[in-house]
Each structure stands twice: as structure tokens, then as C-alpha cells.
């Protein structure tokens, strides 16, 4: 089984478009398991119309709570909290939005006046799609610990992939370089970096690649909207050559891809044009790349 992650650094470069097209093309000959690791803006499910099979609670964050009756007002908690989560206002109170659940105050309180409360901060699901099982999640708006949820989701997907002897685990990653991305990256066999020929795309490709090399995950490049800006396209291809990531393919700027999204369909199943040709040849190249890893 090969574990493939799609990330981009910058949001909106076309990760989910690429993921859905690859799922559509790959499932015709391979056994697939899919995971959407963008847990605070999970979009792959919108394209794959999944049928939910299992729902699991995600007990993500813990927050400290101070028992006012046993608190001796010594102030130790406020002194050691690194997240400015203890408010001093006559007594001591925890600002739940700032509390990271680190337990430092819980362990440190000499009066034992602090308890840690666990709360549900999201859900994750196993669903069936026409391309294979999909693992996806919903982190409640405003919550923390997206990295922990990604880790939980990935473990479940990997387990399923082993049990069903899948050929490919395809993970649609989150934007950025923070904890959900590092959690998604860990232990993958290949990362597809989706970029676009803009200054932001160029800048973020470099940072996305730093993350994949940090986790020793080999990477390759997909350039979306490739013909939008010839000068920056050349810069991106130069950068890719310089950092040693092969080009998997280039997709031309095509507004019909946005149309396919608005129809909630993988582009390759509703369109036949130069953009979908590019996606098809990308899959062919990815297939041979995966046998070589």
C-alpha cells in the first residue's frame, strides 16, 4: 500500500480538484482508501457524495477549570501559565478560548483546586463513496487540536487500508504548514505539492517542500493554472528543479474546472478538455512513480 498526500501550502491552488480527479481515475484499476485531512474546511466529501457508515466523537481539547471554593488565591496558576489563559479578576478564572489544555496548572496547583474537563470538539466519519471508503472529519469552528484529529483520522484510514488490502491511501491535506499539515505529512510515501504560477504560489511551494523534507517524504509538483503567468511559471519550474522535485504535470487555467466544482463532480468524470487530459496523464505518471517508490 502506498500513502500519497496532496498539499499546497497556499490554499485554493486546486488540491481537492486534483484529489478528486486522481480518485476518479485511480479507482478504475486500483483499490483506494481516501482521507480528507483538511478537518476545518473538509471539502472532498462535497465532491464524492459519500454515504456515512460510522460516526465517531472527537474528544479533542481539555480545558482547565478552577474550583473557586478550594482555590486559595495563591496565584501560582497565573504565574506559570504560558498561554495567558488564567484571568485574575478578584478571583482566578480560566479563559477556555486561550487554554491549550497543557495541564501545567493542574499539576502545579498546591490546593488541588484545578480539574481538567474534556470536551467534544468534533466528529470523524467513515463513509462509502463510489471510489472507495472515505475518512473525513468535522472540527467544530473555533476549536483547537486539528493536528490530533488529523492523526486520529489518518490512523483509522491506514487501518482500513491495511484490512482491505488497498493499493493506495490518498490523503487530501490542509493548507498551511502548521500542526494539521505536520500531522498529515508524518509517515507518507509521497507528497504531491499543488502550486500555481503566482508570487504566493512560488513562496508557499518552498515552504511546503521544507515540511515534506523535514519528514523525509519525497515530493513531486503539480502546477495548476499553469499558463496564467509565464514568468512565474518559469521561476516555479526552476525552483522545483533546484530542490529536486519532479514535475508530475501542468494543468492549464480553465474556468470549466470551477464549473465542475459547482456541479460537485470530479472534473474528469464530467469534462473532456485539455485540463482533464492533463489530469489523466498526471495519473499515468503517478502510477508509474508509485511502483518505483
Amino acid at each position, binding site marked *: 500500500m502506498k500513502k500519497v498526500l496532496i498539499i499546497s*501550502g*497556499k*490554499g*485554493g*491552488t486546486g488540491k*481537492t480538484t486534483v484529489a478528486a480527479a486522481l480518485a476518479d481515475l485511480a479507482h478504475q484499476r486500483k483499490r483506494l482508501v481516501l482521507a480528507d485531512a483538511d478537518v*476545518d*474546511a473538509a*471539502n472532498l466529501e*462535497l465532491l464524492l457524495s459519500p454515504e456515512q457508515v460510522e460516526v465517531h466523537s472527537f474528544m479533542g481539547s*481539555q480545558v482547565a477549570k478552577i474550583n473557586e471554593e478550594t482555590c486559595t488565591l495563591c496565584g501560582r496558576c497565573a504565574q*506559570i501559565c*504560558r498561554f495567558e489563559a488564567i484571568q485574575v479578576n478578584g478571583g482566578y478564572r480560566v479563559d*477556555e*478560548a486561550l487554554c*491549550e*489544555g*497543557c*495541564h*501545567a496548572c493542574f*499539576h*502545579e496547583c498546591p490546593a488541588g483546586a484545578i480539574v481538567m474537563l474534556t470536551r467534544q470538539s468534533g466528529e470523524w466519519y467513515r463513509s462509502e463513496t463510489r471510489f472507495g471508503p472515505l475518512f473525513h472529519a468535522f*472540527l467544530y*469552528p*473555533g*476549536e*483547537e487540536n*486539528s*493536528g490530533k484529529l488529523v492523526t486520529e483520522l489518518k490512523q483509522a484510514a491506514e487501518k482500513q487500508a491495511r484490512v482491505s488490502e488497498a493499493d493506495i491511501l490518498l490523503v487530501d491535506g*490542509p*493548507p*498551511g*504548514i*502548521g*500542526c494539521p*499539515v*505536520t500531522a498529515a505529512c508524518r509517515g507518507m510515501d509521497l507528497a504531491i505539492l499543488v502550486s*500555481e*504560477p*503566482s*508570487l*504566493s*504560489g512560488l*513562496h*508557499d511551494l518552498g*515552504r511546503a517542500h*521544507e*515540511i515534506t523534507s*523535514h519528514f523525509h517524504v519525497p515530493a513531486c509538483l503539480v502546477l495548476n*493554472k499553469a499558463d*496564467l*503567468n509565464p*514568468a*512565474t511559471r518559469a521561476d516555479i519550474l526552476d525552483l522545483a528543479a533546484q530542490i529536486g522535485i519532479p514535475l508530475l504535470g501542468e494543468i492549464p*487555467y480553465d*474556468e470549466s474546472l*470551477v464549473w465542475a*466544482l*459547482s456541479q*460537485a463532480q470530479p472534473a474528469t468524470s464530467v469534462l473532456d478538455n485539455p485540463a482533464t487530459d492533463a489530469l489523466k496523464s498526471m495519473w499515468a505518471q503517478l502510477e508509474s512513480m508509485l511502483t518505483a517508490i
Partner: protein
Amino acid sequence: MLVCSHEPGYMVITVASGKGGTGKTTIAANLAIMIARDNPNPSETVWLVDCDVEEPNAGLFIQPQFDTPKPVTRLFPQINTDACNGCGRCAEICAFHAMVVISGKAMLFKDLCHACGSCALNCSEGAISEASEQIGVLGKGQKDNLRFAQGELTVGYPSPVPVIRDLKKWVIREEENPLFILDAAPGTTCPVVEALRGADFALLVTEPTPFGLHDLRLITQLVQEEFHIPCGVVINKSGERDDMIESFCQEKSIPVFMRLPLSRQIAEICARGQLLIDHSEKFALKFRECYQKIRSITPTNSGNTE
């Protein structure tokens, strides 16, 4: 609950989106420069603050002159393996599973560590000390009338929140009625919460696709139900399917302040890192109107007193 009040005298507008790539940075940069250029009163400073510290890109549009950068540091555990007796207390108390005991010695996985200090406080052998490490860098600069600031998270550190927190503390203060425009990260979790904390108004950028709508729902929930601040919507890549966004906005009583059409021309301008307002008076007018609409529903310099 999430709202922190600040003193009257300045105003904070946070540009957010839920979905990535809807055009937050394009909107924030064009809006900020437009306002700074129009500003009749030079004592009212206009700031653009890039709070997407994982991928700070607003500076690419602005090209400011930066002053001396300011490092963001946090205290990370350092294990003295000679003093470590392998008791495993640190691994037991670490809420983030960043500490493990391997072959009788504690070992830190730094990319999981939140720098909370708990392990050092709890080591019975005093084998864990702490040392300051840089997790990011802040920059402040100027381009014509516009003041600009950004934060950048060092690759390999998991949490952008401390960098955003330090950035806001460094920059957001009352200096002669400033206006702050904050460009938030995509998503709806902690980095976005940090960028919305203390804001007076949220400008939500979306696109008329099922993704845009789905993520707009989530960010609206955060803004309306947790922060209770007014918001308005910008429909980017606008076209025939705008109705899906419009009916949601109607349902939630959110005004639509601006539309930018789906067009190759706009995509090309933005890809070159150029400003739409420099390209045509038509765009400049749109941004000017958008700002007037924001001001019309946000009390002038009153601050958020909730």
C-alpha cells in the same frame, strides 16, 4: 466569550474566509492600500497586518520597506541525559505526547511540543531545563501611506498561534486613531480565532461553489455565534451561481459588500502580484464602496465594548 474588549479609539477589520484561495489576501491588500491612499488625515494610520503566519503572502503584493525584524521565541525543554533517571514522569504529564522515554532516557519530539513548561516543572531530578528558541519572526514596514506588519512561523514548529499573538501585541495599539486590517489564515480553528479576537468587523471572502458556501457557513458560525461581531461578505469569482451565496447571506442577514467576477484577467493580475486598484478605476471604486459599507455598519472608532 471569545471577545476581548479593547479601548475605544481604533478599529480592527479582520478578513477571513474559511476556504483557502478565495482571495483574502487580494481583498485585504487592495482594500488597505485604497484606504491609505484616500486617507485625508495622515494622523489616522492605516495598517495591514498579515496574520496568516504559516503562509504570509500579503507582503508580496505590498513590497514594503521592512525595519529590523523581531524574533518570536518560546521556552523549550532541554534534557540533561546524565541527570535523567528515566522515571517517565515527563512523558506521563505531557498532554501533547511530545516526551517519550527511550532506552531509559527522556527524549523530546519538538514538533509536538507546545512549550508549556510542564515537564520542567515536574521533573523530580531537575534534569529538564528550558532554553529560548526562535519559532518565528515578525516584520514591520511601510509602503507610502500604508503601515504593514507580518509574522512568519518557522517551518517545523507546529503552532502558529504564539506568532500571531506576539504580532498583534507588537502592532495593535492605539496611536492616533489607527485602522487595522488583518489578513487571517484560511480555516476556522485556532489561528483564525486568534486573528478574530478583538476585531470590530469581519469581512468574509467566499466564492460561489459548494466549497465556498460550505466554508462560509462555518466561518459565519464562528463570527456570529462566538464573537458576536458584525460581518459582510465579498463574493469573489462571482458569476451565474451567486444565488447559492446570496440566499445563505439573506438567511443569516449578512450584507454582500462587493463582487469580483470570475475572470482570467483578474487571475493574471493577481498572479503577477499586482493590485487590482492600480489596474482600473472600476476596481478602485468597488473597494472604496466596500469600505464605505463597512464603516456604515461599524460604529466609528468606538471599539468593541462587548
